[in-house]
């Protein structure tokens, strides 16, 4: 394998991993606050269609991304209202959100299927992109990929050394204790859910405006689910989310690589790799009960009633 090929594989890996990274970072924050939102797929699709339509009609990519984010937040607020405000079962609500988002996005986007836009162009940073091997991967990408680097660093810092990050962790671990010492449990959870929605919306926008600049029904192709698995795979650790997103990204382009090298392996089989990896990680994690208990947010998925 020559160095150009490897460099190209790495480039594609990061590009493919970016939507996963964005969705998973959002879901991570959401789950850290104790809320399990299975509606990622629906939020991504709504972000994708809103972003695409806005970009197509206005001609402004930035407006497209903003609308994608807004659509994600709107969807997450719907989830928040039902799962937090009305204390409905989070799993059921999340699944409903995915089904709803899939249908609604197809309906909104029906007239826009196959219409072309000029997508977001990569922007190679001078000098840095010349670095052998890693230059193309890290510094010849588009703005959203750079933004994903920044968001990763921000979330990492948020949980590592900020007070709000500490509050999110506390609320996700023991909302009753958090309430008892006067932390705003509901507000924290709403904000975390909204952040998850914004990130999923942005990822959707990335798919329809930058990655494959077009709209197609169900174009997220299960990325929302992979990102959910990714959070578990990363055992709720931010740095592992980055690693996992790129690894899963690599897994989903592997069939192309293998084709290029003359092997033929079913792409469907390769697409199962992220899930197999997640199951393996779950098995390894759950071997030590105490550690497993400490890793996942302890109140994940449990509704919180303030009065008790």
């Amino acid at each position: 394998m020559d160095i150009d090929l490897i460099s190209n594989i790495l480039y594609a890996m990061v590009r493919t991993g970016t939507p996963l990274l964005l969705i998973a970072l959002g879901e991570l924050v959401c789950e850290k606050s104790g809320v399990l939102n299975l509606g990622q797929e629906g939020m991504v699709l709504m972000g994708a269609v809103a972003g695409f339509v806005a970009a197509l009609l206005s001609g402004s990519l930035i407006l497209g991304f903003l609308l994608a984010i807004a659509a994600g937040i709107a969807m997450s607020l719907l989830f928040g209202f039902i799962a937090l405000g009305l204390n409905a079962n989070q799993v059921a609500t999340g699944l409903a959100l995915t089904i709803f988002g899939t249908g609604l996005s197809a309906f909104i986007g029906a007239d826009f299927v196959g219409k072309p836009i000029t997508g977001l162009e990569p922007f190679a940073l001078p000098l840095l992109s010349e670095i052998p091997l890693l230059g193309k991967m890290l510094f010849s990408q588009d703005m959203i990929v750079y933004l994903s680097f920044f968001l990763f660093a921000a979330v990492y810092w948020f949980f590592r050394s900020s007070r709000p990050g500490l509050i999110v962790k506390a609320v996700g671990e023991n909302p009753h204790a958090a309430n008892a010492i006067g932390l705003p449990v509901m507000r924290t959870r709403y904000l975390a859910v909204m952040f998850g929605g914004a990130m999923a919306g942005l990822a959707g926008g990335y798919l329809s405006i930058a990655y494959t600049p077009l709209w197609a029904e169900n174009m997220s192709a299960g990325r929302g689910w992979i990102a959910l698995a990714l959070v578990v795979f990363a055992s709720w650790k931010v740095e592992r989310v980055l690693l996992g997103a790129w690894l899963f990204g690599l897994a989903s382009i592997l069939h192309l690589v293998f084709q290029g090298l003359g092997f033929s392996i079913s792409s469907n089989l390769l697409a199962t790799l992220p899930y197999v990896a997640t199951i393996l990680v779950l098995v390894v994690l759950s071997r030590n009960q105490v550690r497993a208990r400490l890793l996942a947010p302890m109140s994940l998925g449990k509704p919180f009633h303030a009065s008790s």
Partner: protein
Amino acid sequence: MAEAHITPPRLTLRRITKIYPGCVANDSIDLNIEPAEIHALLGENGAGKSTLMKVIYGLVKPDQGEVLWDGMPVEIKDPAQARKLGIGMVFQHFSLFETLTVTENIALALGDDAGDLPSLAKRIREVSEKYGMALNPDREIHTLSVGERQRVEIVRCLVQPIKLLILDEPTSVLTPQEVETLFVTLRQLAKEGCAILFISHKLDEVRALCHNATILRAGKVSGECKPADESSQSIARMMVGDDTPISTDYPKVLREEPFLQVSGLNRVSDDPFGTDLHNISFSVNAGEILGIAGVAGNGQEELLGALSGEDQVENHDAIHFPHGAVGHLSPRERRAAGMAFVPEERLGRGAVPDMSLKDNALLTGFLTGLVNRGMIAHGKTREFAEKIIDRYKVKTPGTEAHAESLSGGNLQKFIIGREIMQNPKLLIAAHPTWGVDIGAATAIHKALIELRDKGAAILVVSEDIDELFQISDRIGAICHGRISPIKPTPDTTINEVGRWMAGDFDEVEIKA
């Protein structure tokens, strides 16, 4: 009138009333706490102590009544506001975050006053040293013992300016030595002008520590007193009312027909921090209560696991019922043979927290005809649960209430009632009255004695040596996974059993 005071009381409650569906938790309660006063709030489980305390801390909004803070009327809307006023609270079930460090936990509670973590850690060290409560700020909570966790809760209140400290049953989780240390800290705090509201039902402790006491019964103030001037008996009378017997001496009996025989039981613990059992031999006779004393962690869990059938033992003969060896049988098979079991943990083992009392009744009661050809007989199950509630005076809105909504003592009455109502031939009970108030404990003891007199063999494993002397016909102790000699209760003394608990016995004696 508050204006008449030169310094108004730190806290005054006037006619506080809180009504929940199905019960009046607080009925027009008045309370006064002065600065530098240690005030006891006494009452049985369900008397309304917790609700009142939550009202003060802003967790529960009263339906009626007013709260005066330093003579000024205030409305305490949430805990954050309570803390701003200078009210700190130490919860019975700690409100700590297990995966976070001591410093992070305290930083969360302090809000913006926390400052940066390193300087806060320093403050924590200073405060904990000043009040004689050693703490390492960098440890994660899940690595701390129960006593240390309580220190974190207390220090969390003390790093802020504090004017009123509320402690909810703080001693129920502590060893006698730890209790002493805690009292030294509390007295020092009071001397500095902090008012302390001490919630408990341990009367000796209240008499040793508190200046004044307010006693609640069924949501109302049933008495006020200076605990030091009263006897434990007279205070207990105010707590439980006139018609509940407080304690009785039960006649001891001697029986000779063994039901449960344990011989040469050896077991390596599954838990790396557990205790292995070594050559345990004893028998429990039909119609008697055998008490096993011991400090927690000396093999009780392993012994109970082996006896209940949760863990099967390799040597089937080591555990014997009259009809044969049972060491290899599952809990269900042993229950079918007449055994009943009350585990130590109420929520999670004795009862499923988010299942109704009716469903919990079914969980062990299904062998007594509550299941008909694989289908649950709902009517009978409800009747069974109702009978338990009625017979053992479990305070609950009804059979559909979730197990977790009951207080510890009430749930324990329910669990013990559930087992006894099945008329077992052998009852194994672990810590039957742990954390249970006098009224409930007396009721549980009476139920056990009644069952004994019906001819059942009863094994009680407990850390409460007074309790064992009160109800056991024969008594022994467990230490480091070995069992002490077992003597008829009248032939031994608390001192001797205390020595056994510390491991001071010769194993050869057992054979005798």
